[in-house]
Each structure stands twice: as structure tokens, then as C-alpha cells.
């Protein structure tokens, strides 16, 4: 796979994600603010995919050889953050659901 093919794959992925976000925004599953935030993120992603050389000064600072390495590190960091955030949110949701279900169970028995 040469650089052009990789760029096409990345662009296709970004466009697909933007389209998915657009559909969610239209269905009002996500707020305007969140939609705008993700559009900015994926626009940045597209820009870097088309012009990877803009990151070269940063590569030297970080002692990295390829833009790909920087992308990998960045991706892992973002994924770790998102996973932790999701985990905390799911735990909180589970606790709320548990309390609600228990409340209903006890209320239905009219103790």
C-alpha cells in the first residue's frame, strides 16, 4: 500500500464518519455542539491525511521518524481516554438503572 492509497482509505473513513455523524445529528441523537466538535476533529483528520508533511516539524521535536508513528501514538492516547470515559459513564448509568429498578420493585410491593 503506497501513501496515496493510504490517504484514500483515511479520507474514505473520515467521510463515512462525517456522514454517520450527520445522520445522528439529523435524528437529533447528538447535540449541535457535539456535532460541531466531531466535524472539527474529522476535518483536522482529513487535512492531516491530505497534507501529512505539516506534522514533520513536530516529528523532529518528538524524535519520531514517520507521521504514522505519531498517528498511532495519538490514536492510542485518544482511545484510552475515550475508553476510560465510557467505562465511568457506563458504571454510573448501571448504578442509576439498578437504583431505579429496585425502587420500582419495592414500590410495587407497597411495603
Amino acid at each position, binding site marked *: 500500500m503506497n501513501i496515496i492509497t493510504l490517504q484514500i482509505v483515511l479520507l474514505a473513513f473520515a467521510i463515512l464518519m462525517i456522514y454517520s455523524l450527520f445522520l445522528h445529528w439529523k435524528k437529533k441523537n447528538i447535540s449541535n455542539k457535539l456535532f460541531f466538535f466531531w466535524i472539527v476533529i474529522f476535518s483536522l483528520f482529513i487535512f492531516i491525511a491530505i497534507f501529512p508533511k505539516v506534522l514533520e516539524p513536530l516529528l523532529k521535536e518528538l524524535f519520531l521518524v514517520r507521521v504514522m508513528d505519531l498517528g498511532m501514538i495519538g490514536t492510542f492516547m485518544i482511545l484510552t481516554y475515550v475508553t476510560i470515559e465510557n467505562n465511568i459513564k457506563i458504571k454510573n448509568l*448501571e448504578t442509576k*438503572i*439498578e437504583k431505579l*429498578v*429496585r425502587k*420500582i*420493585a*419495592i414500590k*410495587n*410491593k407497597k*411495603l
Partner: protein
Amino acid sequence: MINMKIFIIVPVYNEENRAVETINKILKTDKNLNVIVVDDGSADNSLKILNKNFKKNERVIVSSHVINLGKGAAMKTGLKMAWKLGGEAIIFVDADGQHNPKYLPKFIKELDKYPVVFGYRKLNKKSPWIRRNGNKFAGWLIGILFNIKRKDLLCGFLGFKKEVYKKINWKSCRYGIETEMATKIGRNKISFSEIKIDTIYIDKYKGVTIFDAFKILFKIPFWYFAK
């Protein structure tokens, strides 16, 4: 004669064939015992059958979760109901018949002396190898980390008094409740007694699986560093 209001809590999940028999056996052991059954959003006819059999029975309260939350959550719902009804102690019995209610009088007697009473199974060579050794390993590990010596860490036949509930209140919703409870009992230095019970394996696809065991192991560091 023990002057303590004790509730037997039976969490039920998909036990349409066994729950009624288990509850009837419990009721026969002692006329003063009251049972709280919590159907944990069963997918089968458990709730329907339980309501049909015990609707007019004043000694049995049948409640239900609208969705399945897990054994730990069902146990907690039963327990909250028991405290609301003036219960001073509770004993958990599995609905599938793994816990023989004939031991309930022994549990009640021991609860008069100790704040916590555990059942333990003598795991022999007939027990599945993985369960026997997994249980031993978990018992050893929890023993070292939390300073508690248990004969059967994963046995869910147990009871305790209301006075110790705050100290052993568990967060686990699914399997792992018994282990979490043991860690808290060890950490808080709560005295307990153990009663030998029959080793009965009803369904090898139910209960703690190897995957649950790994999940429990993964939780141990969280329990260790918890306040």
C-alpha cells in the same frame, strides 16, 4: 428460641422448574420464617409461577425487577425489603436447589452468636476440577490480601445481621458478591461462623463460570485499593 426477625431471601432467575419447590422447602423448616423472593427479570415463566403459587401466602413476598440486573442486585433488593419490614437478619438461599434448606435452623442458631454465617461445601473429587482448584486459589489469594480464612469462598448460602450490613455492603451486581463480601469482612475484622452444607451441582452452565472467575480475579485489585 431466637428472638430475631429473620428473612430468607431467594433471588430467582429463570428457575421456573425449581424455585417453587425450594421456597416450599424453606417454609417447612420453620413456621416463623418469612421469605422474600426477588425475580430478577426472568425470561421464562418464573414470575408467573411464583405469583400463582404464593400470591395468597402471607409468609412469602414475591417482588420482581423489570429487567435483569444480576444476582447481587436481586439480593440487595430483597435485603432492602427485609430491612423495611423490620428484619434484623437475613439469609440468602439460591432458588435452584443448590442450597438445602434443612440447614436453615443451624444458620439461625449461629446467627444468634455471630454477625455473619457462611455455608461451605466440602469440595471433593466429584466436584468439577476447575471449580475445586479455582475456589482454592481464590480462597488462598483473598486470605493473604484481606486477612480472612474461608473454607469455601464462592458459596452463596450465607446470612448476616443488619448491624454489619453497612460494613459489608457490596457493589458487584453479578457474580463476585460472595468474594467481595469476604474481602470486606476480612478488612473490617468481622467475626463469622461457617456451617458445612451439602455439595450439590444442579446445572453446570449456571453459577460461576471460568469467565466469571477471571472477572472476579480482575476485581480483586479494585477491592484491595478501595477505601
